[in-house]
């Protein structure tokens, strides 16, 4: 028997069985004994203009679902569906409702299916949703620049400092960087887990988290091999680039969150919050330059590193502001967490090669803890 046959035979058998099952199998019996399982998820409610709501809904359940009626704040309301009222599995619709929503107040939209089940979505604070125009593109870009780009570049300015300090203190800052990154990684993971709860069932939010969290380090490790490093050893610049990438992915998620909260009116971006982000994210720049303490990187490399870490915030803010999706947000945060895990591992190896006394030397332990404390303390400023 040829090898390909041995490999394919089980798959062919599976296909035959599935076909038989669908045609004549006991599906009918199953259908009879269970009520229809309907599952709709309201992904986003936009308020594009006064007196109008736009509800984006996805069918994440196993069966087709028909949206029969719409209620807003416990009142039936006329509406328009962009397509058939019946959503097949994984299909999306946008429902437009001419509802006189009230600025600054919460609203609830409930979709009534043909079987009478209701699926609802919330508008926490009603305010006009941003439209994709020059004004909001600029707004979100600035938001990203303030929260991500500027702080990272300011942080990079610590390079002359870390180069000047003694080896012991460089170790201190390296362990501080690890502390920062562990904090950011856990933060990204928690965000991913939280957002995954909002992902429609069929898209399996928690599996996405796992995919991003484990897949990213594995891919990065494979890439390291492929690039010819013996046993995956990396140069300090490569480590710095990895750190920048990890932070960049984290900042992409952070940008998403900021953009979304701003668009849905959940945060008013006051001076206080912007300052908070500035302080919080500046330390990220320090993290990038510390591995370069005994290097002489070119200015161009530094700018690229800063851009890699900071610019994703702008992109995230755009995506989050205009088309928030729990699915992508979950995936981005999970990838960010995975990337940071890789970075921490790489730093650990770098550390093992060079550090005096290892991570458990009192000064290094202090650095690690101090890194986390800095993130915690500055995080207090940005928890909106």
């Amino acid at each position: 028997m040829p090898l390909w046959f041995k490999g394919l035979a089980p798959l062919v058998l599976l296909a035959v069985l599935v076909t038989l099952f669908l045609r004549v199998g006991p599906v009918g019996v199953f259908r009879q004994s269970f009520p229809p399982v309907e599952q709709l998820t309201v992904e986003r409610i936009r308020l594009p203009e006064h007196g109008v709501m736009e509800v984006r809904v996805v069918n994440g359940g196993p069966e087709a679902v028909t949206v029969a009626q719409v209620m807003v704040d416990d009142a039936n309301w006329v509406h328009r569906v962009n397509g058939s009222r019946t959503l097949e599995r994984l299909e999306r619709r946008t429902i437009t409702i001419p509802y006189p929503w009230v600025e600054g107040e919460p609203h609830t939209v409930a979709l009534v299916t043909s079987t009478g089940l209701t699926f609802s979505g919330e508008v926490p604070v009603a305010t006009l949703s941003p439209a994709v125009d020059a004004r909001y593109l600029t707004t979100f870009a600035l938001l990203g620049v303030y929260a991500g780009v500027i702080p990272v570049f300011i942080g990079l300015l610590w390079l002359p400092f870390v180069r000047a300090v003694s080896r012991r203190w460089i170790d201190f800052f390296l362990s501080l960087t690890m502390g920062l990154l562990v904090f950011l990684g856990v933060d990204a993971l928690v965000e991913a887990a939280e957002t995954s709860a909002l992902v429609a069932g069929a898209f399996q939010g928690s599996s996405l988290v796992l995919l991003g969290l484990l897949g990213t380090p594995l891919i990065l490790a494979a890439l390291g091999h492929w690039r010819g490093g013996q046993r995956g050893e990396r140069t300090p610049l490569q480590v710095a680039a990895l750190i920048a990438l990890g932070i960049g992915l984290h900042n992409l998620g952070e940008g998403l969150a900021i953009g979304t909260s701003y668009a849905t009116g959940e945060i008013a971006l006051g001076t206080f919050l912007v300052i908070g982000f500035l302080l919080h994210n500046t330390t990220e720049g320090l993290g990038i330059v510390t591995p370069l303490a005994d290097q002489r990187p070119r200015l161009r490399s530094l700018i690229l590193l800063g851009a890699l870490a900071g610019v994703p915030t702008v992109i995230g803010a755009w995506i989050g502001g205009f088309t928030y999706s729990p699915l992508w947000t979950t995936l981005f945060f999970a990838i960010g967490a995975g990337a940071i895990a890789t970075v921490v591992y790489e730093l650990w190896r770098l550390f093992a090669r060079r550090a005096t006394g290892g991570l458990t030397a009192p000064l290094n332990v202090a650095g690690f803890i101090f890194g986390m404390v800095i993130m915690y303390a500055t995080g207090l400023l940005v928890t909106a």
Partner: protein
Amino acid sequence: MARKKDEILDRSLTRRDLLRVGALGTVGLAAGGSVLALPGLGQSSAGPAQDHATHHDMMTVGKLAPGSFDPSAFLTHFDTGKVSRLPSGQVLREFELVAEDREIEVAPGVFFPAWTYNGQVPGPTIRCTEGDRLRVRFVNKGSHSHSIHFHGIHPSGMDGAFEPVRRGESFVYEFDAEPFGLHLYHCHTVPIKRHIHKGLYGAFIIDPKQGRPPAREMVMVMNGFDTNLDGENEVYAVNTVAFHYQKYPIRVRQGELVRVYVVNVTEFDLLNSFHIHGNLFRLYRTGTDLTRYEWTDVVAMCQGERAVLEFTYKHPGPFMFHAHQSEFAELGWSGIFLVEAPLV
């Protein structure tokens, strides 16, 4: 379900309906249309951009499936039974009520797995005159035990509370109709809450021997449906279908005496109420007395309470009637009396 028409805003119906009537009668749109000449009404499927919503926006969309229960027909349909006389000379009215499970449409496209009398919710309105002998044959073709509990005066064994009728079995309720008034009947099998909420109820009218003054009569059973089974109603209505009488207004004549038999069977909520616009009604609580109880425009009723309302419209045009619990009104319990000029 690729009915493109239903996917656009469905506001045109009532408007067209009302325009036609306005053009027919001497009502004239200046008077009749003024209430309805609300902004936004004309631009049915056009851009929905507006800050001022109207009563035509707060509405269900679409139509019932063809062949569904028609609340407009139910409104004025009274089942007086098969009439004969007993040897004693007493009038005998025979009815048959069959309990059966049926999926009913409580709002366009929203289906509810109901338990019904004769396949409809509410069950048929039973009407007789005080002193008649009633013989109601009850056949249970449903999936659970059921019964019929009539309000009124009757022997213990005819009460329906202690004699659940198993599925596939039947029972004959026989008693004299007393006292005159507006009563109701419903299933009294436990758990009662579910048996009532699922749809086993109807109006039961016993006319006084001398009758009531001639009037245009209608029955309104205030009910609600907990479609997602969370212990709260998602749909409220009179006679089951949300917003039915707002989409298909009830036509009455200016100066004509209107009599509404209102029964409240709403489950889960402590109270329901009835309110009319542009008018007041004479209230006869339970209809057991021919002197009016009150002259008002709102009556609140507990579950099981009923009232006979009489009124005459002075002015032509559309007038709303609805629960004065705004939430109920917004979830379907509201309608329109379209008062037309009298025939000359």
